[in-house]
């Protein structure tokens, strides 16, 4: 069995625009192994989010393959891919995307709708405590601070112990301290053996990554791919 968690090969994706096709991703290849924390940087519209959605099995590329834990995502039927995504891929978004009418506990348990867990509640409570939200268990998102919301979203992403975590601008709506805390949690996840693909245009966020990939006009810039030593940041709960 391959150690590669995420394998992108020659991914291309175009969108239909008013004046024809618009290239979003053009021939990007990427590989993430356990403990990889890869930051994809670039300006708005460079194709970062498209790459992330394609990596998560949510957006089929026009060409190329996406494999997670050795499985070609887009070779699977839709329902099977959805179940596979629930088990193997965690998502964190800039807008948190917590369900507004569910409290913290139910939001963290939301992935069990897709993939029931026998010990889901115990696991969710453990994650909530771990992310410092024990006192917010039955609070709805509107009652939480932005940092708390993102930590709740992070707990939700980790409920099924996925090997791959996809984060789309997770610090975009956070202040520096909360942003650092979230990045520290992502780094901790990677250290524990997970793989993180972080999409951001924030140069500071990239400092926590083990690798940074720069994208421009849908292409990765090979010269800019660099190894960066991860910053040592202790996760803290703001």
């Amino acid at each position: 069995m391959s150690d590669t968690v995420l394998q992108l090969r020659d991914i291309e994706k175009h969108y239909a625009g008013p004046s024809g096709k618009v290239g979003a991703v053009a021939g990007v290849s990427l590989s993430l192994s356990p403990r990889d924390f890869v930051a994809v940087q670039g300006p708005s519209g460079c194709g970062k989010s498209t790459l992330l959605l394609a990596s998560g099995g949510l957006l089929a590329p026009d060409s190329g393959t996406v494999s997670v834990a050795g499985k070609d995502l887009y070779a699977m039927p839709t329902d099977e891919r959805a179940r596979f995504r629930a088990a193997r891929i965690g998502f964190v978004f800039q807008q948190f995307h917590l369900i507004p009418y569910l409290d913290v506990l139910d939001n963290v348990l939301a992935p069990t709708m897709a993939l029931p867990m026998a010990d889901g509640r115990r696991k969710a409570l453990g994650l909530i405590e771990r992310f410092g939200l024990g006192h917010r268990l039955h609070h709805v998102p509107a009652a939480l601070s932005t940092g708390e919301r993102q930590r709740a979203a992070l707990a939700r992403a980790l409920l099924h112990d996925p090997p791959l975590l996809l984060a789309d601008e997770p610090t975009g709506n956070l202040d520096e301290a909360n942003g650092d805390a979230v990045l520290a949690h992502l780094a901790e996840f990677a250290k524990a053996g997970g793989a993180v693909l972080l999409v951001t245009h924030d140069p500071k966020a990239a400092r926590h990554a083990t690798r940074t990939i720069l994208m421009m006009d849908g292409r990765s810039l090979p010269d800019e791919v660099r190894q960066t030593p991860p910053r040592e940041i202790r996760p803290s709960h703001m």
Partner: protein
Amino acid sequence: MTIWRLILREISHRTIGFALGLLSVSIAVASLAGAMTLLRAHDIRTEEIVAAKEAETKREMDKMEDDYRKIMKNLGFNVLILPKDQNLADLYADDFASRYMPEAYVDRLAKSDIVTIQHLLPSLQQKARWPEQGERTVIVIGTRGEVPYAQRTPKSPILDPVEPGTVVLGYELHRGANVKPGDTVAFMGRRLKVAKCHGERGNKDDITAWISLREAQEIFNRPGQINGILALECVCAADSLDKIRAEIAGILPDTQVIEFSSQVIARAEARRRAAETAYAAIESEKQQRARLRAARERFAAMLVPVALVGCMAWIGLSTFGNVRDRRAEIGVLRALGVRSAQILAVFLGKAALIGVAGGVVGYAAGFAAGATWGEGGPASALFQPPLLAASVVLAPLLALVAAWIPALLASQQDPATVLREE
């Protein structure tokens, strides 16, 4: 986390949307349940009205029949049995029969199982002169009183028998003789005690003297003979003289039967017409109620579909709005691995809940309205379990149909598009 928990949490979060959906289904179901309950109340009321009218008609008919019996009895005998060879022209000219038959005939009739006549009164009638009263004309009727039927329960007689040695005098006779009950009067060579004096009747009864049959037979030298048997026609044979004649002919072949007192027949006819009129009135009432019901049905047939279509439109639009409001939620749920069929179930489940709750609430409201504003009837009779069951089953089905398209759109929403736009 289950789909139902998610649905219930969402409902508690967006209570107004749920309440409006519930209200629309309730109104639609209430219009149906109300219309059906009103029609049920109408039917119950119709049954009550018709039953009351039928009971009243029956009472009237019973009373009329009883009156008829009394009238017939009061009118007296209306059937006369005569010797077969009696010339009726002579009878009408002389007021009495000139032919005779054995007195035993009446006993034969009394022992028979005849049903078309009752109250048999044998008589010997003769128009004669009353020598002790200046030769005035008098109709003498000798009778022994009514002969009881051997096979029937005895009835009170129309006429009391005249005891031997007594006489009952008509108005003109006792007035002319200046006698009163208890007096003794000389009558055709006999001394008879006046038993009774009739009031003025204005007919030939006023010159009638009733004596015992035996004495009449002696006076007119007709021992063991009579010239008529009076009888009262049975109610059952009021419209059929032929029936009476046939029955009597079977027992007394040497006789003939005539009927008089046509008022009885007229009254019987009137009674029949009254009965027909009463039953026609009941039928008319039924038809009028049926027309009213048809009008109400037509109104319900317009109201209910409009309410149902309105309800479905509202549920469809509100579900569509709900889908639009929850676009991001759908996208993130799909990203978390929730399948499109589960997204479909989330919206259809909510619609079904609205339908079930609306069905129950709507039925209760419709029932209450129908029971309050209907034409009455006990609640237990107005309550229709099949209608409640239909409401609880059909309302969710309608809600599901109405919510189907927006729910399908939600389930087919591309999560990538949603997340990119967010």
